[in-house]
């Protein structure tokens, strides 16, 4: 008899615990928001350099991104050339990028196209800073989702001094400055 009431009580408490867990899950899952991933708001990023050092991946999943449609195709590119560059050419001593990831290609006088080699880019943001100070701001930082492992809490987001990281829907995972870009996924 004693044993029976005891196990009955246990069953009851167990049931109550299950209901509690179910309640927590329902209440947490009530928002039908889409699945979210991390992205950088280019309007807030200050190119502090932490993207290169704080990602759990090495090299970082954050890379420089180029919006061609708002680029000036300048010969004197603030993102490509060091401010103290002696010559306007592809000499390594003239380049701002520490890994020569930003590549320059002549299009027609006096325009040059700049392309990022993502395998080389470490996400240091030097070119981005140069481009936003001297140019159009067509170079900016983005989390590359083919690399990002989508941490539960992004380690860079925690370290970002500018609060530039936010969660965006996985179905539209980039925050591009221009909507005139032809996108390929």
């Amino acid at each position, binding site marked *: 008899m004693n044993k029976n009431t005891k196990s009955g009580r246990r069953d009851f408490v167990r049931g109550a615990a299950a209901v509690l867990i179910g309640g927590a899950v329902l209440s947490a899952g009530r928002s039908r928001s889409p699945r979210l991933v991390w992205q950088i708001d280019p309007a807030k990023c200050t190119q502090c350099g932490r993207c290169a050092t704080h990602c759990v991946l090495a090299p970082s999943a954050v890379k420089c991104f180029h919006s061609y449609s708002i680029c000036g195709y300048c010969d004197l590119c603030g993102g490509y050339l060091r401010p103290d560059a002696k010559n306007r050419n592809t000499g390594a001593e003239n380049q701002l990028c520490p890994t020569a990831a930003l590549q320059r290609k002549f299009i027609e006088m006096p325009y040059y196209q700049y392309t990022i080699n993502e395998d080389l880019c470490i996400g240091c943001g030097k070119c981005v800073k140069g481009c936003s100070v001297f140019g159009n701001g067509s170079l900016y930082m983005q989390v590359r989702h083919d690399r990002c492992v989508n941490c539960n809490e992004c380690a860079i987001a925690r370290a970002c001094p500018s609060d530039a990281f936010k969660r965006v829907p996985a179905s539209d995972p980039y925050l591009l400055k221009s909507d*005139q870009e032809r996108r390929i996924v």
Partner: protein
Amino acid sequence: MKRYVVPPLGGFSPTGSRWTGRLKAVLHALVCMFFFFFGTTAHAEFRFPMPEFASGYTHPPVHVPGPSNMMVGWDIVVLLSTLTLASIFVLKHRKRREIFLLTLFSMIYFGFWRNGCVCSVGSVQNIMAGICDPDYGVPLTVLVFFSAPLIFALLFGRVFCAAVCPLGAIQEAVAVKPVKVPPAVEKVLSVFPYLYLGLAMLSVAMGAGFIICQYDPFVGVFRMGASFSMWIFGGLMLVLGIFVARPYCRFLCPYGVLLNWCSKLSRRHATITPAGCIQCDLCADSCPYNAINEPTPSEVPETREQGARRLGLLLLLFPVLVALGVGVGCLLKEPLSRMHPTVRLAERIAGEELGRYAETNIESEAFRASDTPNEKLYAEAMEIKEGFGIGRKWLGAFIGLVIGCKLVSVSILRKRTDYEPDRGTCYSCGRCFKYCPVQE
């Protein structure tokens, strides 16, 4: 999100002659040069219109690959199957080898292959975030990762810890020379998971971030990359784990608190003996986690009345402990609210304004570059501090309650005639099975 509108092609007619084309190119170069040499530090943008190319050049497409890490359904399937297998191994097959092999599989799959994210331990925070913030969507995977191990614990004990949790698995794999921790030390240290859980929940509720993820010692090992301090922490934990088995599980894991509660109520639970205990005492030292309860001595050292009086006294102690917890919580207002980055930033800015720091730091520079007025930041920080004002009292009361319960649980002598695993703290690792001489 603010989308930028592409600036109009100021002054450039699309059908310009060759000569005007040249001219605008020269102009463009001059403007470029001006900004390059006299560029201001203000982040003015779109200084130059996108050129019209005479050669018919069109700009290349941009590559925007979607998230690759999306094997959602598959993860849930693997989780549920490993949980089921673990239950079968622990309750039916009762072979340590099988359990351990499954543990290794989970370490490789959930840890090294899936990079240890998202795990059930961290999912507590997503659940809390989902409860507190209606706009925070908790994905299905996370809901399942949170609830399935708890439901299994309600049914079969902590089979999740035994062979599924990647954090537990990596510790299980290194625990080669476990020594016994004195039970008293074990009891005292086992308060920390509650504290950690409380702090983590407070942090999430206040929007101060996911501290369980931040201080996860092993995720850096799984990903082969972490900050220097986290490498040190993870490395120390693993070295310590050689001698003190599962240090994270026993003295830190916040999810373990919930599993402990659920497992206490479990419908079935791992047993040391396959049939009946004969009190041979052979298994007594086989558990590296101090999770085997010995039979209570037949000679009860005190009378029933004495025991009842002691229990009464302890119950009277409860309100005192809770009040004490609230008091300590009140004292901790400042350090606790500093968990929030906005509060830290506001203090830094205020300090800089008062000339307390010789130079600015990267956070304060970024803040100043954003042109937000200081007052707005201060007001925000004050509001957050207010929030912590309530939260810290709850946290204190919770810890007071936990300590009270711990005291009661050590002082109550539940009558036990057999050697049994403690349902709350047993990880169902299966080490003790082979010590029992009884055959099925």
